[in-house]
């Protein structure tokens, strides 16, 4: 049974992630008063990328993107998906935090090898932005881990399901609010879209990708969206007992992200980091202090 889920959960994540990509294009189109592409448009595009001729810039160029995607797949194995968690006992949230590094690191290495300054600029922005949202994010994660006194994600979810989700319990609600405030940054949506910025730095890190490489990057994007949203649902929205409810919760979170995405222009990276280190950090910090003081 466990083996089955080991195989299935990346596939489910891929399907959900691709559905989310298609859905978000559709929703954005409707907000723009357009029809938009069909829901399966990302699939068409990935298929097209894989049948095109790719241009490689060196061994690391391919290796980096493979590493990045593999890292994302492993993270998915560690994340509970509505009662299913394939690898629950191998290090918990700390491993997840670290495995989440592999995805940006792989892209950064492979984009750097491409020798295109657009890619380098994009990567430098990505890393700075990540430093920006990691501070409130770590505060949130630590508040949750301290409150439930465990580093295991499965335990965090089950503890929330026994009592109430973090959003509905007192000191943790602050962490939840802070998480909402940084969610667009973690998903790379506007106003924190400065990493890719197609009009400005030609999609940043992925400027030099073509053919199958671009296909893998698109899959990677789908998985990253899945990971970002499911982490949110698991950490502060109590996960779910079955995959279907979990999926519905993810949809709601995605919709929130999309509405923010549609309403805001792009921030410069300094503005973004300044925002992230101001309000979300402050709220998350207060949340952590309350958790520590009330918990004792």
């Amino acid at each position, binding site marked *: 049974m466990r083996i089955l889920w080991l195989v299935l959960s990346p596939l489910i994540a891929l399907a959900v992630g691709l559905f989310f990509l298609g859905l978000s294009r559709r929703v954005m189109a409707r907000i723009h008063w*357009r029809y*938009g*592409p069909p829901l399966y448009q990302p699939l*068409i595009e990935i298929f097209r990328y894989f049948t*095109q001729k790719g241009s490689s810039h060196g061994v690391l160029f391919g290796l980096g993107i493979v590493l990045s995607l593999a890292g994302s797949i492993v993270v998915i194995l560690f994340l509970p998906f509505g009662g299913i968690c394939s690898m629950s006992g191998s290090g918990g949230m700390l491993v997840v935090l670290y495995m989440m590094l592999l995805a940006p690191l792989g892209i950064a290495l492979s984009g750097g090898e491409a020798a295109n300054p657009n890619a380098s600029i994009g990567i430098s922005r990505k890393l700075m932005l990540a430093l920006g949202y990691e501070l409130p994010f770590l505060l949130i994660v630590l508040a949750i881990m301290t409150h439930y006194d465990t580093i295991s994600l499965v335990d965090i979810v089950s503890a929330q399901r026994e009592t109430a989700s973090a959003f509905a319990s007192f000191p943790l609600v602050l962490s939840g609010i802070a998480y909402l405030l940084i969610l667009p940054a973690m998903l790379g949506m506007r106003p924190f879209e400065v990493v890719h910025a197609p009009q400005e730095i030609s999609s940043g890190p992925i*400027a*030099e990708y*073509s053919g199958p490489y671009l296909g893998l990057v698109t899959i990677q994007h789908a998985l990253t969206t899945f990971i970002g949203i499911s982490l949110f649902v698991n950490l502060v929205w109590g996960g779910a007992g079955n995959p279907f409810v979990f999926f519905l919760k993810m949809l709601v979170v995605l919709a929130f992200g999309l509405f923010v995405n549609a309403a805001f222009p792009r921030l410069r990276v300094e503005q973004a980091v300044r925002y992230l280190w101001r309000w979300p950090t402050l709220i998350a910090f207060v949340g952590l202090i309350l958790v520590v003081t009330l918990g004792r």
Partner: protein
Amino acid sequence: MDRNQLTKWFKAPTKMAHKYSLHAVYFCTGCGVIEIPPTITARWDAERFGVIPAATPRHANLFLITGYVSVKTLRAVIRTYEQMPEPKFTVGFGSCPINGGMYWDSYNTINQLDKYIPIDGWIAGCMPRPEAIFVAVTHLWTLIDKDMADGYKRYRKHYAQYRANQEQVLGELEWPPLFQSEREG
């Protein structure tokens, strides 16, 4: 639009995928730049048909050259075309790329774009309306279906000829030939 016919997807998935995800490099040389925004935004919504602007030629498979091509621009046009991954399709937009249009006797523009890079289809007019882009895209679908949008194959086959034409206008080119062997042969 045969996007929803499942049988076609099973028969020729590659062709279908290429047809319905035309990511375009809009090479707006001068005029024609104003026809593009209404096409891709809410007025005409090209994304319905899978046509979206691509950020770099590496992501694209449709090359739209709008308006006159000056000699200086030609260099960039050729570079961009060569950097696009195969299979790739080109569409000349407006009368100037076709035969020089109102710049037919200018000292600084080229008259026939398809002497330098292969063109799969033309949109005539000075300027064509944005709807014409959709007409061109539907024609391109038909051509892809019938294997007639083979500009990139022609480029490979007659690369020596194309390269000679390019060098005639631009002088010595600073980049090495794209296809080494064909040129010598």
